[in-house]
């Protein structure tokens, strides 16, 4: 007997929790109460299952128990009438007929889950609250786990979640999937939250915090779930593709000491082929969704396309730089930004030679938003070094080193300054 019953029960909770809360939300219309009844059901399971064994349909058992808890609470408190009357009828019928766990499990909860995602990422909440609530309600992470992942004290996260729930119930936020024009705006918020969670995990290069890759995996899982729920939305598939492709390089992007390895220097044998395949498939799905009705690729899809150009190249030399230059052009047209222009300059430098890249970079020299951006002198230094203009290159790398706050980045820049003269 390998599985410890408590660990099995914990695993079942994490599988069932989002579905349970999403269904209970339909009845309670309140995140706090839905969570509470789900919790009650788990506690009942913890008391019951270790002795009697895990029921054959644990999901259905939990759902039925939670609904009974909701009804009990309602009888005690006489809260919000109509939905509970319905529930009471539903439960009486269930109790009169032999329990049909199959149908309780087969209930299509897809719409409820989608509503829950939109509620957790509601614009009435702060960005931080959206992230915490999404991880708590949909990721099934405990407050402790969220706090650990974001390196903040546990009470801070707990309070953030409590306040978020309060805001939702005070504002009487509708439990629904937005329609029409509101949909794309609200969807953008949801995607932003998921990508934020992903980047929180991805940005950390140190291997000390084990929760970090888990955040990436959780974001990716949420993205995949959303892609099944909102199949017609190209940007959902675009974001999933972007995350799959970035994740495919997760293990190749740092060396044994945790130092970052630049994309072109990475050992491509360590790129995850399965995730690359999945990422490319998600791009194809995004394009299909773009076709009906006809829509232009959004920023996530374009960024995924960029990542795909690298993923498709088996060696750095095979990289399709012309395509990359074109994608940066499209991205810049969609959301004009000097940073995108700078990236385009790098790609153009790879395609047409350093002089061509340098011309664009020089055009960005007086861009106010890049005034403190250390990558501007870093890129310029790189192009100058390739042109053999050693002294100028060294000066640019030193300037970049002075501009960054990050120790590691500074060390890299100083090393390059030294190498520029050799």
């Amino acid at each position, binding site marked *: 007997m*390998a599985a*410890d019953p408590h660990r099995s029960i*914990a*695993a079942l909770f*994490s599988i069932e929790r989002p579905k349970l809360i999403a269904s209970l939300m339909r009845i309670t219309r309140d995140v706090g109460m839905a969570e509470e009844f789900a919790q009650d059901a788990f506690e009942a399971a913890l008391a019951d299952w270790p002795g009697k064994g895990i029921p054959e349909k644990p999901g259905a058992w939990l759902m039925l128990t939670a609904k009974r808890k909701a009804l009990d609470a309602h009888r005690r408190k006489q809260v919000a009438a109509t939905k509970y009357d319905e529930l009471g009828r539903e439960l009486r019928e269930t109790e009169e007929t032999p329990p049909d766990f199959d149908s309780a499990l087969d209930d299509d909860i897809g719409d409820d889950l989608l509503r829950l995602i939109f509620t957790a990422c509601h614009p009435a909440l702060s960005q931080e609250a959206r992230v915490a609530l999404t991880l708590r309600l949909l990721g099934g992470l405990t407050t402790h786990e969220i706090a650990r992942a974001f390196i903040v004290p546990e009470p801070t996260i707990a309070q953030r979640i409590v306040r978020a729930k309060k805001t939702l119930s005070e504002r009487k936020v509708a439990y629904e999937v937005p329609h029409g024009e509101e949909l794309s705006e609200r969807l953008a918020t949801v995607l932003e939250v998921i990508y934020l969670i992903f980047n929180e995990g991805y940005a950390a290069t140190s291997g000390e915090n084990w929760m970090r890759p888990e955040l990436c*995996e959780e974001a990716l899982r949420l993205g995949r779930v959303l892609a099944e729920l909102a199949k017609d939305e190209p940007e959902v598939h675009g974001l999933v593709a972007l995350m799959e492709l970035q994740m495919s390089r997760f*293990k190749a992007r740092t060396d*044994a000491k945790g130092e970052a390895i630049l994309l072109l220097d990475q050992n491509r044998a*360590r790129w995850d082929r399965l995730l690359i395949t999945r990422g490319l498939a998600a791009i194809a799905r995004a394009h299909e969704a773009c076709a009906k009705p006809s829509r232009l690729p959004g920023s996530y899809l374009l960024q995924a396309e960029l990542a795909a150009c690298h993923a498709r190249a088996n060696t750095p030399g095979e990289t399709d730089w012309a395509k990359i230059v074109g994608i940066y052009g499209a991205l810049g047209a969609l959301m004009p930004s000097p940073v995108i222009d700078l990236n385009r300059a790098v790609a153009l430098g790879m395609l047409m030679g350093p002089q061509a890249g340098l011309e664009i970079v020089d055009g960005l020299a007086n861009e106010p938003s890049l005034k403190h951006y250390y990558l501007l002198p870093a890129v310029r230094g790189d192009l100058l070094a390739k042109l053999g203009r050693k002294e100028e290159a060294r000066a640019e790398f030193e300037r970049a080193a002075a501009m960054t706050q990050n120790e590691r980045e500074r060390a890299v820049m100083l090393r390059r300054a030294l190498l520029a003269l050799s």
Partner: protein
Amino acid sequence: MRVMVIVKASKDSEAGVMPSEELLTAMGKFNEEMVKAGIMLDGNGLKPTSKGVRLTFDGNKRTVVDGPFTETKELIAGYWLLQVKSLEEAIEWMKRCPNPHNDGGELEIRPLYELEDFAPGEGIRIHEKLRDELKGK
């Protein structure tokens, strides 16, 4: 973590008997559930060993042995690759899997080594160099 769920072969799977319509439907539904939960990375069924071969190594000697192979219970009929939080999560999911065979089916769940389990050493470097050479620069 990633796990591979290995579906063991049965007399039927080895005989190339296709699963019943009922099992196919149930399996399709089960797969859909895992896709919707965002945990299924990949999954495939394998043709019987009569369509496959074994390559055996003995020092520098390599011998190709044609299937079928006999020890049915030890053979593989299919697999899933799942991204889960724990082995227990994989177990709980797989308890919901329809019995893959009419007679006694068996699944084996095995966590994958992650690349970080290996220090990036000479082996990986050589592996990459070879690959690049094969690609022709």
